[in-house]
């Protein structure tokens, strides 16, 4: 719903990486794998 969407938009960037929570290897790999074609 819009509020959840709004919440996620504040917390995460468009690649699914959190703005606030520190990342680690598995998370960053997951974010990267979600980026279809980097170029």
């Amino acid at each position, binding site marked *: 719903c819009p509020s959840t969407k709004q919440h996620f938009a504040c917390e995460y960037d468009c690649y699914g990486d*959190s703005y*606030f929570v*520190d*990342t680690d290897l598995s998370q*960053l790999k997951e974010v990267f794998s979600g980026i279809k074609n980097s170029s």
Partner: protein
Amino acid sequence: MERKVSKICLASEPSVIHFLQVSWEKTLGSGFVITLTDGHSAWTGTVSASEISQEADDMAMEKEKYVDELRKALVSGAGPVDTYKFNFLKESGHFSFEKCLKDVSFRLGSFNLEKVASPAEVIRELICYCLDTVTEHQAKNEHLQKENERLLRDWKDAQGRFEKCVSAKETLETDLYERFILVLNEKKTKIRNLHKLLNEVQELEKNTEHDR
């Protein structure tokens, strides 16, 4: 000139190994010289291209096919040992050979050989040819052996470089991720601090608003 020396046994003297030397220019079908020796005497004869064609006609066989049969019988010795039977009448010098299949054998050809006046020379020449062939093969062997060793070194080298590259790629990936995580978490800390600051300022703003 091509040449081949092979061991044969004559039907008339099965216990004595004879040596058949066949030498030819360009192709066997263009005619060849055949020499037979038992290590003591020697007989030789020349077979012309036309005689070969004649024999092929007599056997109603395609010349190519017939020459192939000749090659198998007189040169490569293809097939099981008793595939071919050789007959030689020393008196007349008549040499004939036949192909033995399961239960039938058919004559493949015959030539007249002349007895050689000085067999020692022919025998020496034949032994020299054999020794030269041994030397040639030995040299080829050594060359191939060296080639073998070089290829093995090259393969090991390429395999080593490949393995190094695989581990370098893994190291690179780990290393890059570590660096990325460091830089990214720096930014996230910055965002958290700015966010916290912003909340404080907004809080303040609200209170001031309220006071006013």
